[in-house]
């Protein structure tokens, strides 16, 4: 496969990225990682390993101290504010703290991600209903998010992340507060979005959702990649030695 072709397929590209928090917490150290369009990638590792930090770097919530972060072919370090805003409109995020507005209804919270792209209100309504249906929250449409359980809030955050049909979806601990059945609902929704073309990066330490997967799994420890193939394994079948974590089990 020639490299030019390869480049256009890559949607996320971290090159020797380091992020240090004050005073000297090395949240991410010298990480290089590429993700192809249409991939599902699991970022795993123990608490404090740097998973959330990487997701923040991809959305320029944080900026790296060293290295280059490229998303959709654009170097985030050089992107103007307006261009970054435009890029963010094509990235769906569900962070660990959900970032829901407690006094707004579930539907209003989900609508926000679509309103900024000027989606028609009728479209917003049908999409919201569809997604809530898939997540088992159909009856919570009008409920203020403050009245929801944490597991329900988590699903609303995920619903918002995928509602705008983004090209890249970043989810942080999407199943952290969920039981087995609801976890399946969430993972089904994410793979549904993936089949429609979205690239999905899932930061998690819930082994149950990646144990059996044939998608790439990256393990971080103390801000470094210690396991998994940092480049898209187009050649995974030819070179299975580099992917210790992934066993090609059926799904």
């Amino acid at each position, binding site marked *: 496969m020639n490299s030019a072709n390869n480049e256009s397929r890559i949607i996320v590209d971290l090159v020797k990225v380091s992020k240090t928090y004050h005073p000297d917490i090395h949240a991410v150290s010298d990480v290089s990682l590429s993700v192809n369009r249409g991939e599902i990638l699991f970022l795993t590792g123990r608490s404090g390993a740097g998973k959330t930090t990487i997701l923040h770097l991809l*959305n320029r*919530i944080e900026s790296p101290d060293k290295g280059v972060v490229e998303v959709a072919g654009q170097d985030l370090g050089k992107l103007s*504010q*307006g261009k*970054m*805003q*435009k*890029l*963010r*409109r*094509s*990235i769906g*995020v569900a962070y660990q703290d959900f*970032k829901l*507005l407690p006094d707004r209804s579930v539907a209003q919270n989900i609508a*926000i*991600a679509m*309103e*900024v792209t*000027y*989606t*028609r*209100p009728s479209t917003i309504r049908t999409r919201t209903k569809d997604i809530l249906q898939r997540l088992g929250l159909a009856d919570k449409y009008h409920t203020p998010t403050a009245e929801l359980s944490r597991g329900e809030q988590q699903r609303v955050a995920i619903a*918002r992340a995928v509602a*705008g049909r983004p090209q890249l979806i970043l989810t942080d601990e999407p199943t952290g507060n969920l039981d087995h059945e609801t976890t399946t609902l969430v993972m089904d929704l994410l793979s549904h979005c993936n089949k429609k073309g979205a690239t999905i990066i899932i930061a998690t330490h819930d082994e149950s959702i990646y144990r059996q997967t044939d998608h790439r799994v990256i393990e971080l420890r103390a801000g470094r990649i210690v396991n998994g193939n940092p480049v898209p394994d187009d050649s995974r079948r030819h070179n299975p030695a580099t992917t210790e974590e992934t066993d090609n089990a059926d799904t």
Partner: protein
Amino acid sequence: MLNFISAVFSHTLRNIFQTWSSQLLTVLTIILSVLIFSFFYLLYTNVLHVSRLLDNNLRLIVYLNDEPGKAMQEEYRDKILKFDTVEKIVFVSRKEAFKRFARQLKENRDVLKDMPTDFLPPSIEIYPVHSLDALTRIKRFSDYLETLPGVLKVQYGREWVARFYSFVKLLRIVVVLSGVLLILTTTFVVGHTIRLTLLSRQRELELLRLVGASNNYIRMPFFLEGALQGLVGSAGGIAALYLLFNWISLRFAVSSTSFLPQFTFFSLPVIVAIIAISTLLCGFGSFSSTRKALRL
């Protein structure tokens, strides 16, 4: 585009409903300051109006030593016009002055029987242009005329004009001051409430930035909110002034009849201008305060 507008409007409305109590306070402040400003401005325009009515009777009379000949008249005319354009210049000869005097005396004109017909001095009557500040110029004009050769005396309603002049001047200062007050309150008060609401909406703004809302998307609702406050506030202020005006003119109509010149309210273009300017002021006041608060 339509979706943008509807999104912005729904945001604006939601914001307003969420913080209606501070909105009300802002609108009341705007009503009050628009009322104060437009009250003085209305007074000012009416005083100017009155002064214009009086202008019609206002003329400078320049008494001369000697009857000017044709050439001399032209010379005076040139010198007068060199100082200022005027509506009309009338030369009154001794005879003409006598005739007028006799006419004024009516039945008592007999007393003039034995008087020579040239005992009154000749004069020039100058009617100034009907401009807004005719009154303010008339004193300087009179001073100038007194320096012309052959001038005996220049006469106009000196006392009265001077007092009126200073009154108009004072009123103009008050109008300017209340205008400044209006601008300060609108920008400060509106900006302040917007900053308060910005603080209470930190969460929402953070989320909006997270999902990639553009600066305009975030700021337009604030502009509209401010503009709406300005619109409602200034319309309310003008309405309050109108009620006050009606009440006052009703009072005057009872106590005195048609002697005082009729007071008039603002014309429609002036009303529209006051409301439009306040609306824009408030809109930009809130727009610029979001700029600081959002660190754009």
